[in-house]
């Protein structure tokens, strides 16, 4: 089949970008979307032009590197599918596709379709973990974890950190991402000791990174390639409120916002 692509080209973070048209003949329905872009790029290189920059790596929908908007939808039209797993059989001859980067203030554009999502790492750095020294763990079966809790925790832990939730949200909120980690760790008995602090620190960091607030629109759930449920945001809000009500939360007296500011660039 033949497709017409309009792709956002931008040389550098500060350069002016624009949509550029590419006509692609001979698209096989068995190709993945990224393989189709590979073919376009090979042609560009042979013409001496720079290939379209896009992040990708595992191409199995698990590393979270890839992601851009196709006709305004993060990762394109297939539900529960990262763009690397999107196959061209979804499209028909003559389709016109508009391909743009994930846009959010917290995701500065690097080049073409590639954006910098390190703000998500800093949210994890702020407290998205269980503090356990290597070698200090008790025997694995000492603490039983009910099967249904483990399954729910796994549902949330499946997040690949691609940032589609942020790109799809009109507020550019990272609530689904943050809520997923808070839910994963908060459901497990091992995660209880730091539960209050975790919620406060991670939410503070998300704010400092200039992600917006959640207003329960639900676009994030709709585009999430791992189909993480918006319920994780409710869990995050509950943990955050509970933690905020406690008057003395830490013997260290750390202000989570101060900490977040020291960690990230606002």
């Amino acid at each position: 089949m033949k497709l017409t692509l309009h792709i956002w080209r931008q040389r550098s973070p500060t350069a002016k970008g624009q949509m550029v048209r590419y006509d692609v003949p001979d698209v096989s329905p068995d190709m993945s979307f990224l393989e189709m872009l590979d073919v376009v790029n090979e042609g560009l290189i042979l013409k001496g032009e720079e290939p379209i920059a896009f992040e990708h790596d595992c191409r199995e929908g698990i590393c979270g590197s890839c992601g851009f908007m196709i006709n305004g939808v993060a990762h394109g039209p297939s539900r529960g599918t990262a763009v690397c797993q999107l196959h061209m059989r979804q499209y028909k001859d003559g389709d016109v596709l508009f391909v743009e980067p994930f846009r959010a203030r917290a995701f500065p554009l690097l080049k073409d379709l590639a954006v910098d999502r390190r703000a998500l790492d800093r949210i994890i750095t702020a407290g998205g973990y269980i503090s356990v020294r290597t070698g200090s763990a008790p025997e694995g079966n000492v603490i039983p974890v009910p099967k249904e809790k483990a399954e729910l925790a796994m549902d949330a832990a499946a997040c690949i950190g691609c940032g589609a939730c942020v790109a799809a949200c009109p507020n550019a909120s990272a609530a689904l991402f943050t809520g997923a980690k808070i839910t994963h760790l908060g459901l497990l008995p091992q995660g209880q000791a730091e539960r209050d602090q975790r919620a406060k620190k991670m939410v503070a960091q998300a704010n400092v990174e200039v992600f917006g607030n959640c207003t329960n629109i639900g676009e994030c759930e709709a585009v999430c390639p791992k189909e993480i449920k918006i319920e994780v945001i409710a869990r995050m809000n509950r943990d955050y409120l509970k933690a905020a009500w406690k008057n003395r939360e830490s013997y260290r007296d750390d202000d989570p916002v101060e900490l977040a500011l020291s960690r990230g660039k606002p």
Partner: protein
Amino acid sequence: MAPLKIESKLPSGPIEQAWEKAQFEMKLVNPANKRKYNILVVGSGLAGGSAAASLGELGYNVKCFCFHGSPRRAHSIAAQGGINAAKNYQNDGDSIFRLFYDTVKGGDFRAREANVYRLAQNSVRIIDQCVAQGVPFAREYGGALANRSFGGAQVSRTFYARGQTGQQLLLGAYQALERQVDEGTVQMLPYTEMLDLVVVDGHARGIVTRDLLTGEIKCHVGDAVVLASGGYGNVYYLSTNAKGSNATAIWRAHKRGAAFANPCFTQIHPTCIPVSGEYQSKLTLMSESLRNDGRIWVPKKPHDKRPPDQIPEEDRDYFLERRYPSFGNLVPRDVASRNIKMVCDEGRGVGPSGLGVYLDFADAIRRLGRATIAERYGNLFEMYERITGENPYEVPMRIYPAIHYTMGGLWVDYELMSTIPGLFVLGEANFSDHGANRLGASALMQGLSDGYFIIPYTIGNYLASNKLEKVGVSHPAFRSVEAEVVAMTKKLLSINGTRTTTSFHKELGKIVWDKCGMSRNAGGLEDALGRIRGLREEFWKNVKVVGDSNDLNASIEAAGRVADYFELAELMCIDALDRNESCGGHFREEYQTSDNEALRNDELYSYVAAWEFTGVKSPPKLHKEPLEFHYVHPSQRSYK
């Protein structure tokens, strides 16, 4: 350069106490002094991430480098099936000794006993550590950890988190790493690729990197360098590795003096989705765990083009069950892959290309119900359907082997140090524990064992035993390596030929897959060597790299990596040609039993082949590390 020495430093005495004894004999670095040492960790996957986190916890000053935008994107994340541990929770007769035994045997007696025993011992602690980090392993209804069986084992010792075990273990290590970033002990450098190693007075003292966003070439000084940059499966172009996975860090360290061990030991995974066309950019693995319930078959008659549901039972050949009644579909990966190739070579392969066999779940669905199968493999079935457009609940999957893992890698001693003092190598990047074939669910185990439970001890021993001179980036060794790196980038940009890097890479990959893949023979390997050399020369005259060196430029990244693959592919073929026996993943057609099983030659080839680099156009020098077996007596492997 000092002459290359192969000293394995294997501990003496009973194997059960060897590691504990070795640990006790290692020198320690005083807690207050640890922060004075700078350690450079290259790679942030299971091995690198767990090492950086654990070394940071100990108080060392750690810099961790990854070429991805985030350490969480390392390719360990894509491991599906699980991680082995000798917990014996199933009461089915597992033990540390049995895991050790299975791994040595599965590796076809080409691994070191002491290393493998230590790996089996560490396996138990890894599970504890990961549970404590919040890894959501599968559970029984009572809340206990669940297990499943996996290829090459007759006990259920594999721990798993759906089909995303690698992801969950990596996120555990990543979170531990981010905790250390917050503590200030680890500095994370994403979008940074190591392009060379700097050796000063015979010791690894630093690396040269390229900032992938700005193109800046930079030197980093350290007291020790830890490489955990993964394997080299992408030499084959089509593999199950991520597109970015590459061999540049280990290859350039090899060129600076680190011996490369057993490069021809590569693993072909039996259950991958078959190739669909020329544009194919990579192959996708279907977890080995599918072989627990799926039955592998082909039609009995060659070129039988009937759809699978119209081929009656009596016209089907369940060839693994027929040939290996006791292991059936669960034979180790090398055996399964070879048998699949055999039936396809007989013209009995299925699918449009004839390069495929059925993996059929109809019996399992009948026996256990669709819901159980969905619970076990739901995400894998969905992935299969997304890629192929076929529903495996109704139509049998089609699978074909693909390159998946490389057992070979930089040579390391028992302390995971390469032949360059101060250069440590962990995970898939080293050669240490899997011999000539890796068992399923053992890669995650080895990566984490190296990172959490070995390097924290052995790096201290090195640092406490060596008094290193203070050097800075202005040292002549750093200046000259940096100049070489800059020159190589310039050279690649200046060629301005007529072929893309990818076209070279595809052609190289095809040569290596055909001649040094699932089966090899002397004539084919000689032929491959000639063609690889010719292609390499053409590459350096005719490659087209576009853009410039000072911004995000995937074209230049790829060209540098492919340049290294040419040299590495050559070494793989030289090693394969030199090893006149069949063992594990290395199947030389000249050496097989009457029923087509691999025929080892223990008398002549019971050694690790460690190759020394002597120049791009001069033959590498072979050093042999003899292997001794005191606990598991080498025998012809039998899974019948």
